[in-house]
């Protein structure tokens, strides 16, 4: 049964039905077979090259990785952190002695004194190569850096002066933080200065201190400071006696 619309447009439908049928060309199957064979041979070639080359999908991601690596290299080469380790000066550090057992500390002290006396017997012209290097470097440095060392020396001298007087000193940290790399000197019991001085057993020769040559004005300042310290110590002594 025909629908309403089909009756309405009967003429159009008839016209379209009456159109000549268009057929495929004579060699259609042969052409098709040829194309199919071509495709198969192309597939074989692809599989061969597929083994030889990377898959095409990986190329963009590989490109991204390479680009990222290049960017990282450029950024790192510009940063200050990328210093040549062979050109960096080694940090000046002091030997750190941590004392927990006082008896063993005394024994160590004796041994160190013996070693020291043995060293003193050796000719003085044998200087450690590191010391030589430090000396040569310090000569070229500005004098402002030397003030730190002056303060260090002052404290040590103060301690030594007290040693002679037999004062009792509790020592927690004698050196400024810049010179201490790890840990600190901790003496749980009060120790006399003589014990500290010998117990530490660290002399300037053993440490790679920077040694600064002072001019006359600086020397004067140092002397004045030294005098002040000595006066203070004398005053302290008198106060205690009183």
């Amino acid at each position: 049964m025909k629908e309403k619309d089909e009756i309405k447009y009967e003429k159009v439908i008839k016209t379209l039905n009456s159109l000549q049928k268009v057929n495929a060309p004579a060699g259609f199957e042969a052409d098709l077979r040829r194309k199919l064979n071509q495709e198969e041979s192309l597939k074989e070639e692809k599989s061969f090259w597929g083994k030889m080359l990377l898959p095409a999908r990986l190329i963009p991601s590989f490109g991204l990785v390479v680009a990222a690596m290049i960017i990282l290299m450029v950024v790192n080469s510009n940063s200050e952190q990328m210093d040549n380790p062979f050109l960096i000066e080694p940090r000046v550090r002091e030997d750190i002695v941590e004392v927990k057992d006082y008896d063993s500390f005394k024994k160590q002290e004796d041994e160190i004194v013996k070693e020291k006396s043995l060293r003193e017997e050796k000719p003085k012209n044998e200087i450690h190569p590191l010391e030589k290097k430090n000396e040569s470097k310090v000569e070229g440095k500005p004098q402002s850096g030397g003030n730190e060392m002056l303060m260090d020396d002052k404290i040590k001298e103060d301690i030594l002066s007290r040693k002679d007087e037999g004062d009792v000193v509790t020592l927690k940290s004698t050196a400024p933080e810049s010179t201490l790399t790890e840990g600190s000197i901790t003496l749980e019991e009060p120790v006399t200065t003589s014990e500290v001085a010998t117990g530490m057993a660290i002399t300037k020769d053993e440490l790679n201190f920077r040694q600064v040559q002072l001019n006359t004005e600086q020397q004067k300042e140092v002397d004045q400071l030294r005098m002040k310290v000595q006066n203070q110590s004398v005053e302290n002594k008198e106060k205690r006696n009183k």
Partner: protein
Amino acid sequence: MEINREAEFRKENNLNDLPDEELILEFQQNGTERAFEILVQRYKNPLTNYVFRYLGDYEACVDVVQETMIKVYRYKDSYSSIAKFSTWIYTIAGNLAKTEYRRRRRRSFLSINDYGEEHKTFDIPDESYRPDIITDSGIKDKIIQEALMKVKDAYREAVILRDVQGMTYEEISVILGVNEGTVKSRINRGRVQLQELLKDIYNE
């Protein structure tokens, strides 16, 4: 030897008697090339007619139909036995025809823009019309084809499937992937446009 030949002959006859769905299954499961060849024989002309009426270019239409067959050959496993083979192959052909039509339209638009003056439009003469013999009926065919080409793509496709290929609304809805109501409305609109375009022929 004779027994083998007889068996082959029987098999050949059997394949020719098989419906499309069984032939494609035979090709899918056993890789029987003969089954594929029979399908090509059955569908090459109806598909050529359908694609030609849609594209209006014989050479392009033959290429599209061959491409359709290649796709059937290559993607035979994607055919599901639930669907009708005819709707499956018409869907492939229709999609390829649409792609080709869009490509040709873009190309012709670009070529006109390259050489033409601004704000001027040109009619592209269709030199590829076949059959070659120009008769009265041939001229009439040409006029109808030209009218068909002026109908909107979506309507033209539905009208061709219904009034040229003689398919049911249900089959057309499967091929186009739209519901039957949409198919009917598209066909009607196409017919209205065609009637308007062909009114001179009817007056004669």
